[in-house]
């Protein structure tokens, strides 16, 4: 397989402008400027590049639907907020190849005819953010950014926004508020950011990994890109694998690679060969569990959805049979309760309620009614919250109630954690 996303990657010593250009960097600019913006969008749509930020929406279609006649100024936002537990792929791109990000933002902005782009960087990635700013200065000095960049007649200014640091800032509309300097509460679904985004102007948000594919698609064509994937997937994907495996890490592999291959081949299998797999989260912390019987599901958007979960960010979190799934779910729910933006009631006050119940169960204080109560509360939290945060937040919990029902019952009946009796707390 041809590595495209990781081609220029060097975590310790990222390429400067000259080195990047010497190894083929920024070549897609000329390809792009020779094309009409609509043609680029058509190619990206034909390549079936699906959003890598979690939802898997077709990138080309999103761009086309914004419309070529959207009023100026138009904005592009590159989402590099990456705060989901278990997801650490965008970080590799940021620290390892800042110029690859800039190149992809330039060609994407050209396709969208956006005169200004923002790269929203997770607050904890400050060092990477500064590397990126440095790279932008290099590109500006070389005339690759700014007015009439590269002699194309196209103007683009890129700003790096270093986040104040909250998970919710990754959500598209909360991020728009954050860039505007407001509280990062999500905005109502209507009007859409594509027409009323940053400062009320048309705004397109994409995950950084999504965008980094674009130059390669332009230079090699849609068909080439589609063929990079296997089992029906298109392109390659940065998979993050963490948890109870020998070699956790980021792997660029074809979209559609089965979970079994990811876990047992690339991540080296479970870290203790004596253990068996309990289950895994396929797409980051806000996706439902998959079980050992799903190991052969191709890790691509549709097959994972058919298996009852979500590919999300393609970040697998592996549990073996020594991991208490209740403790895992408690841990994740705690994270989400902590990161709730506090805007709507079901999420803000519902998640801490779930934490309280889960904690009682995990520490041997659960009661017989708790499972029904969890289920009941989740039904409202998942369906009646303001943004997609809370529905995602309860996904592992809701699926665990089904998949790990016996574990829950065991906790409640024995009034202790079967994995670790020391967790027992006095009430």
């Amino acid at each position, binding site marked *: 397989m041809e590595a495209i996303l990781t081609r220029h990657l060097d975590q310790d010593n990222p390429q400067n402008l000259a080195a990047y250009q010497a190894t083929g960097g920024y070549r897609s600019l000329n390809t792009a400027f020779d094309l009409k913006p609509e043609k680029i969008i058509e190619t990206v749509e034909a390549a079936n590049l699906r959003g890598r930020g979690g939802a898997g929406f077709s990138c080309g279609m999103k761009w086309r639907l914004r419309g070529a006649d959207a009023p100026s100024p138009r904005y592009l936002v590159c989402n590099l907020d990456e705060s989901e537990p278990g997801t650490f792929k965008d970080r590799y791109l940021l620290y390892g190849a800042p110029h690859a990000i800039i190149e992809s933002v330039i060609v994407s902005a050209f396709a969208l005819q956006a005169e200004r782009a923002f790269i929203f960087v997770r607050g904890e990635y400050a060092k990477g953010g500064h590397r990126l700013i440095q790279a932008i200065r290099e590109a500006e000095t070389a005339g690759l950014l700014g007015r009439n960049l590269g002699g194309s007649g196209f103007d683009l200014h890129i700003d790096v926004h270093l986040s104040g640091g*909250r998970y*919710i800032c990754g959500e598209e509309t909360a991020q728009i508020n954050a860039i505007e300097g407001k*509280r990062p509460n999500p905005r*109502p679904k209507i009007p859409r950011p594509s027409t009323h985004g940053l400062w009320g102007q048309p705004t397109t948000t994409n995950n950084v990994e999504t965008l980094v594919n674009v130059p390669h698609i332009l230079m090699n064509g849609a068909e080439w890109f589609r063929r990079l994937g296997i089992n029906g997937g298109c392109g390659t994907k940065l998979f993050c694998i963490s948890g109870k495996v020998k070699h956790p890490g980021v792997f660029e592999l074809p979209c559609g690679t089965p979970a079994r291959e990811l876990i047992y081949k690339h991540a080296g299998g479970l870290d203790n060969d004596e253990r068996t797999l309990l289950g895994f989260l396929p797409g980051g912390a806000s996706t439902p569990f998959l079980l050992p019987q799903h190991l052969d599901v191709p890790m691509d958007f549709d097959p994972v959805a058919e298996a009852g979960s979500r590919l999300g960010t393609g970040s697998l979190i592996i549990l073996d049979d020594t991991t208490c799934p209740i403790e895992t779910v408690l841990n994740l729910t705690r994270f989400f*309760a*902590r*990161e*709730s*933006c*506090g*805007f*709507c*009631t*079901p999420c*803000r*006050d*519902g998640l*801490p*309620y779930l934490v*309280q119940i889960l904690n*009682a169960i995990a520490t041997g204080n659960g009661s017989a009614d708790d499972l029904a*109560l969890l289920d*009941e*509360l989740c039904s*409202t939290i998942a*369906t*009646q*919250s*303001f943004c997609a945060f809370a529905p995602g937040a309860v996904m592992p919990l809701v699926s665990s109630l089904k998949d790990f029902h016996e574990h829950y019952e065991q906790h409640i009946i024995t009034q202790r954690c079967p994995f670790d009796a020391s967790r027992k707390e006095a009430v």
Partner: protein
Amino acid sequence: MDTFLIDGQSVTFEPGENILQAALEADIQIPHFCYHAALGSLGACRLCAVEINPKDSDKNARVVMACLEPAQKGLEVSLSAAAAQQVRRHVIELLMINHPHDCPICDEGGECHLQEMTVACGPSYRRYRGNKRTFPNQDLGPLIHHEMNRCITCYRCTRFYQDYALGNDLGAMRLRNEVYFGRFQDGPLENPFAGNLVEICPTGVFTDAVFRQHFARTWDLKTAPSICPHCSVGCNTLPGARDGTLRRVRNRAHQELNRWFICDRGRYGHQYSEHNTRPLSPRVSGINTDYRSALAAAARKIQAAAERTGGIGSVREDLEGNVMLRSLLNDLKGIFTAFNDPELEAATLTAVSRMQELDNTPHLAALEQIDAALITGDLTVHAPMIDLALRQAWRNGAKLAMLHSSVAPLTQFASTAATVAPREIHDMLTQLYRQISRQPETNDAVTQTIKTIAATLSQARQPLMAGVVETSTAQDIIALAELAKAFEPAAQLIYVLPGPNAYGAALLSAAGDTVSLLKAVERGEVQTLIVAGSDPFSEPRSGARWRVARQKINTLIVLDCIATATAEAADILIPVAAWPERSGTFVNYEGRAQGFSTVFHRPEYLPSTADIISEISRLLENQLCDAASMLQDSFPGFQAPTPGTPGVQISAQHLPIRNNELMQTEPYSSDNGWQAALTSWLGDEPLAGFSPALTELAPPDTALINPESAARASLKSGSSVRLWNSVYSVETCVQINPSVANETIAIPRSMLVRLGIGHGDSLNLEQLV
């Protein structure tokens, strides 16, 4: 109009309305927290869940938020559906997880939206077994008490404070279930509309700190529709009293004036009526007595003086009191005026006559729709709710141009603002007039400011001219009115008048009577002076003259409900009922007559001004008719407007349009060219001046001077100076303030009074070492 159904009941809606709005207008109560008619939908609380059954589609019924779902023709909405009820029950359960359940000691109890919603939707029992999250509270100053543990995070407070009232010292901080609504640090809230937090917060987080000092449960309060007596806007209020004392004032919605809100002066100024200096017993020659003796003494003095009696009514006295006093003086052939100051009289009469002439004075709801305005002076203090309406216009994109001599908080939102010395405003307006009517004089060096303002106003669909009478001369007022007329059709015109019934007082006054009376008193031609609800001694420009002239008066009879300087000096002091203790009529800046009711009686016997004058005239045996019939004589067809109704435009003959030959006071010219300007603050109003909660917030008395003028005079912030005119002087210290015009010294009212000068008069400055 189209309709949809809520549980089978047909509801009409306007295009663009959502289900919740339409339902509330039809008086169908869909539970809600974060939605507020003034603020619109937010979608945060998730309480307004309803089930909808989409028509003409195979989609399933689903639960949606009524405040976010557009009303559609034929839509079937169910409030009672089990799925919707379950969501509402969950929302309440979640909101109550951390709530302290301290209703018995909470000031909101009994009028708490959260209580009502919990009873309507919520589970009666608690399932949550964890600990509650708790918050520290803040000291937000004397007006508002803060109790954050009761918060349900509905965001109404910040949306009102920041988005609507455009304040910036209160907001939402932190996240998750720890969102904190408060200030960055302890300290009094700075926005002049902060008190509305008490009403907009659906729980007991923000409560009325003044009410709290002498609290009563809402069901124990006596209430009746009243009108705010603290400025000429005439906001509708609902005072609440118990056991013969006034406890609080709340907003009462008037669709065209104050819809949901009132200003902090309107909410907290009422403490004047409970002030410990308030006269409650009649006093003759310094000795407390009863009404019968005091009135008999007054009648004897008046009888002795006969036509050598004078009478001063008041811009803060109701129509009834003013008309009775005027009739008494008519009978006696003495002079009556409703003003203390000749220039203020001229300015008020001119302003009223010009508003009558243009007949295009907008109410507050209409003000929110204007797209450009020229404002002279400080509306924030002189008519706070007009300022709030203009803030809404600004939010809708209106351009505000401002000319001001001293501090004017609305300039924060001005697209063009210029500081202009008081006596130069007229010239600015004249230049603007020429620019707009396209007759710039040759060689007329028109400044960029003039050009910009003229362009802004000329491009507007609906320009407004707004001025403040108290800081304008009659000539300034004429100039602004002429400017309004220069637009086709004429621009809207507002003059903020100097009291809640200044309009009514003007209609009952004859031009020039104030100066005639003042001169008559100075010449010793007035033996007995009756002053009703007025404080001539504390008038900036003429107060000093009145205080001197008082020596020539045999008997000073004062009727008032506050201990003014004039009341303190009275030979016969007759306490009267404060506004919530009587009924009457005020005419606001639009000429709208509004009635107010007696809310309660104090234990002391306290008649109204009209009652007292009627009794005096009975004792004089020249019986006056009652106030109602006298008002009918003055205003054809006059019917006292029923309290609680929107009021009526008063039908009065137009005051004559004058070009103001009357006012020929020769300005005192100073040696070093400084002009005085009045700088006010929210509590600077005769009644509110007796409200301790407000006066606690008074800025220090200093002389404000702008940086350039200060530099030229080698003054720094903190420099001690002596200000003087021909007779009086005061010592104070300088504070540098860029909102003050060149060569202008902006000083508080009390200093103007001590100096015996008015806004725009000259004064001298000398630095003390």
